[in-house]
C-alpha cells in the first residue's frame, strides 16, 4: 500500500513540477491562446452567418420559384409565406429584386426588343419601336421561324428599307442582334427623317419643299432671302440611312458668291449638325431666310 500511494504521490509531485515549470513558460502562450480563441469565435460567427445565409437563400429560392410560377399562371393571390413578419416581407422584397434583375439581364441580352414566342416555341415575333425627340412612331414587326434555320417569315417593314440585305449581312443564325440592331438603326433613322420633313412642312410654310422621296433620304428646299427676295435652293443628302442628319448640304443660288459667304458657310454647318426643322428656326431668327 505504501508503494502505491508513494507512486501516486511521486507522480503527482512530478506533475506539479511539470506544471510549475510550464507555468514559467506560460506568459508567452496567453496571447496565442487568445488569438486562437478569438479566431475560433470569429469562425463560429462566420459559420452561423453562413448558415443563416444558406437558410435565407433556400427560402428565397422557394419564394422566387413560387413567384415565377405565379407570374406564369398570372394569379393575383398571395401564396407562400403566411407570416406577416418583417422577415418574410424583407424576404419577399429580396425575391422580387432578384426577379427584376434577372428580367433586366434577359432584356439586355435580347437588346431591349420586345420578343414573344410563337407557335409553341417554334417561332418568334420581334417588335421594333421607333421614336424621335421623345415621341413614339410606328412599330415594325418581324415574324421569324427558328427551325430548321432562323429566317424571317413575315414582316411589315416598308420595301425601301433594305431588310433582305441586312438579313444576309447579319449573323442571325447565332446572334439575332446582328440583324435587329442595324435594322432598328435604319428604322429609327427613317422615322426621325420623316418626322423632320413633317415638321418642316408644318412649322416652316415659307420654305418650299421642292423634292423628297419615300425613304426621306434626300430633300430639296427652297429658301427665300428676305432682303434680296431671291431664292436659294438647298439640297440635303442623307446618304447614310442609319442617321437622321445629312451627309451633304449644298446651296444653289443665282448669286454664285452667296454659297461661299461666311454666313452661308455657317448655315451649311448648322444644317449638317442640327435637325433641319430646328436649323430652319435658327436661320429664320437670324433673319437670313424668310
Amino acid at each position, binding site marked *: 500500500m505504501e508503494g502505491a500511494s508513494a507512486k501516486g504521490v511521486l507522480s503527482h509531485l512530478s506533475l506539479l513540477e511539470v506544471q510549475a515549470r510550464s507555468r514559467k513558460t506560460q506568459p508567452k502562450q496567453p496571447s496565442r491562446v487568445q488569438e486562437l480563441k478569438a479566431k475560433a469565435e470569429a469562425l463560429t460567427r462566420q459559420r452561423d452567418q453562413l448558415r443563416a445565409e444558406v437558410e435565407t437563400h433556400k427560402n428565397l429560392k422557394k419564394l422566387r420559384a413560387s413567384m415565377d410560377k405565379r407570374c406564369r399562371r398570372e394569379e393575383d393571390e398571395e401564396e407562400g409565406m403566411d407570416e406577416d413578419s418583417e422577415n418574410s416581407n424583407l424576404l419577399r422584397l429580396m425575391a422580387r429584386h432578384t426577379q427584376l434583375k434577372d428580367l433586366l439581364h434577359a432584356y439586355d441580352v435580347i437588346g431591349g426588343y420586345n420578343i414573344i414566342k410563337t407557335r409553341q416555341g417554334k417561332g418568334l415575333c420581334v417588335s421594333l419601336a421607333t421614336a424621335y425627340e421623345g415621341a413614339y412612331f410606328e412599330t415594325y*414587326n418581324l415574324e421569324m421561324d427558328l427551325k430548321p434555320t432562323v429566317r424571317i417569315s413575315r414582316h*411589315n417593314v416598308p*420595301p425601301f428599307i433594305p431588310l433582305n440585305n441586312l438579313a444576309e449581312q447579319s449573323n442571325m443564325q447565332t446572334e439575332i442582334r446582328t440583324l435587329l440592331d442595324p435594322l432598328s438603326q435604319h428604322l429609327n433613322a427613317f422615322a426621325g427623317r420623316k418626322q423632320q420633313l413633317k415638321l418642316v412642312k408644318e412649322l416652316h410654310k415659307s420654305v418650299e419643299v421642292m423634292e423628297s422621296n419615300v425613304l426621306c433620304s434626300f430633300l430639296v428646299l427652297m429658301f427665300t432671302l428676305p432682303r434680296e427676295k431671291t431664292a436659294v435652293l438647298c439640297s440635303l443628302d442623307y446618304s447614310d440611312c442609319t442617321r437622321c442628319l445629312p451627309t451633304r448640304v449644298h446651296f444653289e443660288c443665282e448669286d454664285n458668291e452667296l454659297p461661299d459667304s461666311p454666313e452661308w458657310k455657317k448655315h451649311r454647318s448648322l444644317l449638317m449638325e442640327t435637325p433641319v426643322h430646328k436649323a430652319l428656326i435658327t436661320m429664320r431668327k437670324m433673319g437670313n431666310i424668310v
Partner: protein
Amino acid sequence: MDDTTKRLVQRLVKRIPAQMLRTTLDKWDRLTGEQKKSMDFTQSKWALTEKMLDLCEVNGLSVKHLTELEMIYIIDNPNKGMWYAFQLMDPQDDAHSVELMQFKEQFKSHLKELVRHVSIKIKKHTDEAVWIRIAWGDTFARPNHLKPTYVVHYLQSPYVFVTSLTLKQKPLLSQALVLSTRYQAIKDANLSGRKLTAIRDLLMRKYQQVFPTKYPSPLPENNPTISSIETFFVLLQMACEAFGGGMLPQLQSAVYKLETKFRDNSNKTMSEREEPFKCVVKFASTNLLESFRHCASSGIASTPVTPLLSCIPLKGRNYFVITDNGPGPSSQMRQPQN
C-alpha cells in the same frame, strides 16, 4: 386644229365624267375663269366636245397641253384600267441615291435611244409617286397619243406599276427603267388589279398588318374547353394575321394555274395519265382579301389559313403557277432568278 388634237379632245371629254371634268379643268389651269364659266356640264358630251374644241382653238392649245389634262385626270383617278406590278431586281450601289432629276433625265434619254419617236411626260405627285406618260411611235410613225402607257414608280422602292403596255413595248420600257433606276433586272411581280391604290398598298405595305400578341391562343380543335366567344376571337386573330386588319387593299381576283398530277383514285383514266392535269382556278370578288378574311374568321375556311391563300398578301401577288414541286418561279423579263 389637227386631227390628233381633235381626236384627243373627243376622247378626253368622252372618258372623263362630267363632274370630274370641272375639277380637272380647274387643276389644268389652261382656261380662263370666264371660259370655264361658259361651260355647261349638264350638256351632252357631244356638245361639251364642241365647246372644248372651240376653247382649245381660241387658246392655241395643242396635244402637249391636252396630254397634261389627261395626266391630271388619270393621277386623280388611278383606279381604272388594268394595272400590272413589276419588281426591279439587284440594285447597284448607287440605286438608293437616285434622285428625281437624275431619274427623269436618264429615263427620257434611254427611252429615246430605243424608240425613235416617243413622247414622254414625267410628273411627281404629292405622295412621292413618279408618274410617267409614254406615247409610243416608231421609226416611221409619230407618237400615238390615243393609246398612252402610264407608269408609276416610287424612287428607292423596287416596284413599278404599269397600265396599257403592249408586248412589243414591254422590253423597251423595261430597259429604260432598269437603266435609269440603277438596278440590274426587272421581273413580273405577278400582281395585277383594276385599282392601282390596292396593288400599290399591298406591295408598299401601306395597310395594317396584324402580328401575334403576347397571349397566344390555342387552336379551338385542340382545346375542347374553349368557349364560343374565345373561338371567335381566336379565329379572328388568325384571319387578321393571315390577311391583315382594318381596311384591306381591294384586290379583285386571284388566279391559280395548276399543273399537277391528277389525284383521285376513283377516276383511273385521269389519274393514270402521265401529263399533269392543267386547270385554272380563279377567285373573284369586289374585295377578295376581305372575303378571304371573313371566310377564315367565320370558320368557313379551315384554320390555320392555308398558305395558298395567305401568300397573296404575304408575297404580294395574285397569280400563281402550282406544279407538283410547289409554286413555280415567277416569269422574268430579263435574267433567270437564282
